[in-house]
Every structure is written in structure tokens, then in C-alpha cells.
């Protein structure tokens, strides 16, 4: 015999899950945002998506929706606002959304102006649907060794994320920086060899 000890509540209801993952490169940040409305808010989201009310979400409607979402998202690098541009928007069917488990995926990117090597701060703020939003925001492990994440700071609901990261030089600049030290070491070594092998006066 099977008996439940708890209340069976299947899925997200009145929350609007917004999960952001940030991929930081030296010259840009790529953002993937998954929006999953619960059943109680799904109809509003569908209305925002299906603008011509024909019961299907066309590509242009998905893009227009995504542009609206991105207007509520701000990215700053070292305190300077950068422009977040839509790359792609993918929507499940209306039925899937209305069941409360479909996710709209938005891909966006923001260019990062040339920065000096060293510590920088990237701030991501998501103010979209603050009335129902439940937020996740995380930096991915960088795909390049030129970016090293030092720390992440969030407010309690993860609407606001600051990523401290170190920007390292390119391999070429690292070689160039190491060149004087390498040359100096080489000279010292050569001097030592010469000193040991120099012809000595006989006593």
C-alpha cells in the first residue's frame, strides 16, 4: 500500500524562474537566459509572446519578446554600461508554456571595450518581472585562460550579480613581458659560464 506523507504539488506555480549564465571573454560577455514561467503566470507570458493572438509564436514574436526582456537587463563593466544585444530567442509551444514548464531561452551578448590587464568588475542586473521573478545568476568557468574569475557577489535574490575577474595578457604579451627577464637571466648565465672558463694566469 502506498500512502503519501505530503501534498502533491507538481510544478512551479506562481514563480517566474529566470536563470542567467554569464560567459566572460576578454572582449565580450555572452549571456544565456532561461525563462520558465509557472502555470499561474504562463498566460501573461504567452500574451506577451503571441502578439497577433494566432495561437503560435513566430520567430519575430519571440525576438520582440526577447528585446523587451533585455531592456530590463543591465550589464556594466567597471561601472560603464555596455549594450546587451539579442543573439537568438527560442520559445517552446504555447501549450508547453501553459503547462508551466516550458522555458524561453534567450541568448544575448555585450561587447566589452579594451581593458588593461588586471582586476575588473562585471555587474549583471535583471529587473525583468520583479513581481514574480525568481532568479539564478552564475558565471560560467571561462572558456579562455585569459579570464580568471576571482569572486562573485550577489544580492539575496540573485537579481544582482557582480563578477570580479582578472584579465590576463595574450600569450604574445606574456612572452613580451617575460622577454627582458629572460634576456637578463641569459646574460647572467653566459657571464657565469665565461667567468668559469676564462683563461687564468699561472702563478
Amino acid at each position, binding site marked *: *500500500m*502506498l*500512502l*503519501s*506523507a*505530503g*501534498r*502533491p*504539488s*507538481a*510544478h*512551479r*506555480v506562481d*514563480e517566474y*524562474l529566470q*536563470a542567467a*549564465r554569464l*560567459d566572460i571573454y576578454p572582449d565580450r560577455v555572452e549571456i544565456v537566459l*532561461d525563462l520558465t514561467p509557472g502555470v499561474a503566470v504562463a498566460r501573461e507570458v504567452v500574451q506577451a509572446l503571441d502578439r497577433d493572438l494566432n495561437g503560435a509564436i513566430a520567430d519575430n514574436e519571440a525576438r520582440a519578446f526577447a528585446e523587451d526582456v533585455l531592456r530590463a537587463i543591465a550589464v556594466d563593466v567597471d561601472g560603464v554600461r555596455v549594450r546587451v544585444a539579442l543573439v537568438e530567442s527560442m520559445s517552446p509551444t504555447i501549450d*508547453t508554456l501553459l*503547462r508551466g*514548464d516550458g*522555458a524561453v531561452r534567450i541568448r544575448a551578448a555585450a561587447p566589452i571595450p579594451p581593458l588593461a590587464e588586471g582586476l575588473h568588475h562585471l555587474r549583471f542586473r535583471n529587473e525583468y518581472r520583479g513581481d514574480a521573478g*525568481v*532568479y*539564478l545568476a*552564475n*558565471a*560560467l*568557468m571561462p*572558456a579562455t585562460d585569459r579570464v580568471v*574569475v576571482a569572486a*562573485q557577489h*550577489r*544580492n*539575496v*535574490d*540573485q537579481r544582482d550579480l557582480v563578477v570580479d575577474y582578472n584579465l590576463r595578457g595574450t600569450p604574445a604579451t606574456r612572452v613580451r613581458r617575460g622577454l627582458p627577464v629572460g634576456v637578463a637571466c641569459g646574460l647572467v648565465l653566459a657571464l657565469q659560464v665565461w667567468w668559469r672558463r676564462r683563461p687564468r694566469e699561472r702563478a
Partner: protein
Amino acid sequence: MHARHRIASIAAVSVLAILAASAGAQRGAPAHSQADVTARIVAAAQGVLTALDDSRRAKVQFPFDSPQKTNWSNLPSPMFQRNGLRLADVTAAQRGAVMTLLSVALSRDGYRKVIDIMRGDEVLRTTQSSGGAGRGRGRGPGGTGGPAFGENEYYLAFLGTPSTTAPWRLQFGGHHLAINLTLAGSQATMAPSLPAAQPASYAFEGRTVRPLGSENDKAFALINALDAGQRGQAILNYRVADLVLGPGRDGRAIEPEGIRASALAAAQQQALLDLVREWAGIINDAFAEPRMAEIKTNLPNTYFAWSGPTTNGSAAYFRVQAPTLIVEYAPQQGSVDHIHTIYRDPTNDYGAKITAK
């Protein structure tokens, strides 16, 4: 196929199944080699194929690198459209062969966990049915109305041909369960996989079943074994409402956070390993042991992060992350009765490392 031939085949499958099951039941006895276990899993998989008729056999087989690889979810069908052989559509003997395969492929505890999760979904089905509203009647794909819950709504798929040498995958899942087992000769991985539970506690034959109870209790014991300074490092100052790297989020790892295991005392490190074993040990012991050895090797670079209250019985999120491991445990909408978890290996999800040519 003639009836006599079919009966002979089923008898052969049954013998194989009994042999395999007895092998599976002997964990605790001397450990079998990985190659032996692969051979047993392959034999049990072939037993399933032999037990099926042509149409059902066609449903269970997929190409090794087909999109089916990533076609898994925590969601019930038909919210999420699964492919493969649905347990509701097989005979009792065929179902027996499927369950025997799982018992061989998984450890004793892993198999129990899978059964407990499936039974939990049966609880959900009966509770939702009695609640009316046309939900949870186990109608399955193609039916109308709400989600299909219950023990019959789980699917088996083989990606590639079961083999002791060539790579192939065993995929088994349904609501709150995704097992993705990739085998390549004597190596195997179960990443990514998703054990989840709702209800998280139920009564079955006079006893209380908690499919993810050990995970919960070990994690709370660990966080409470930390001193104030360690907790300060482990506990995140923000709410985590769901899995960060759940279904559909393959391929990349997030930056680790929390306390580094190198800052833990030996007993605390052991408690962390015991916690991780709840996921890494779902697979047959022959593969779980080398996996645990790898995780232990990486222990200095392993992080434990916590979000939420630290009193057992509360809804709290936690994550264990290492170079070859990600485990997340996420109560849904603040409920301790609805838990999602994920198990990943960023270097070897879907056997990327062991199937590399």
C-alpha cells in the same frame, strides 16, 4: 517467430536474468571486475532485446549519437516527450527483463533508489487521481489532459548496440528520474543523471520510504559538523531556487563557490565523500569504486556550498563541485517534499572522455 521458439527464448532470457540478478545481489561479496560487470550488463541488455518483439525492439533502439542522448528531463510525460520503450507497453516478462537489467547495471543502493523514486511517482499518481481534476491517470503520451504519473510511465532506450567493446548507452527515465549510463568496454559513467523525488517521504508496506533521505540527512549532518568559520565559507548569502545545471544545461561548468574541502578536517572530508557517494554510487560498484577514487583524488579542489537553513527538515539547497564532479540538490519552491538533484561530470558527461576516439 514460432511460439515454441519464443518460449525457448523467454526461458533463456529468464535464466540469464536470474544469473544476472544473482550476480547483482552479491555485491558485498568479492567485487567483480569492470569487464565482468560490463559483460553482465550486456547480457542483461541482450536479454531485454530477445524478450521483445520486433515492434518493441525497434522502439528501444537508437543510434549511438542520436539526439535521444540529451532527450531526458525531470518532467512527467507528456509535458516532456520521451522516446523509447514505455513500461506501460510491455508484458510482465519483458518488464522483468528491464528491471533485471537495471539491477545489474546499478548498485544495490542505486537500484533501491530507482525503485523508490518510481514508487513515489505511483503515490503521486494515486493521490492526484483521487484528487480528481483529470490529472495523473497514467494515460501517457497521446493522452489528453495533465501529466502522466506512475510506475508505468518510465522509458528504456539503448543508444548503440549493447557491446562489451564498443561504446553504447543505456537510458532509463521518467518523471523525476533520468539515468544515462554510458559504457565503453570496461569503463562506464552515469553522468549526467537526475534522481529526484516527490513525495520525498511516503509509506509503503508499513514503512516510511524517503528516496533521497540519505542525501538530505548526510548533507545536514555535514553542514552542522562545520564550525562557525567553516560555515561562513560554505553558506552562500543568497537564495538558490532551483538547479543551476539541470536538464538541457550540458557542456559547461559554473564557477565553484562555498568552502574548499582542503579547509575541512579529515572527518568532515569523509562526510563529504559519503555524501557524494549517494550519487556516484548509484552505478554498479565495479564502476563506482574507481569513480570514488577519482573524486577522492580531487578532494583538495572540491567545494561544498549551502543555501538555506541548517536545521534538518528545512528546505535547503546544496552543491558539491570538483573538476570532475557537480552535484546539486534543490528543493522546489521551498518544499521539502519535492526535491530535484543532478549529478554531472564536466569532463565525462555522456562518456565524452571514455568514448573519445
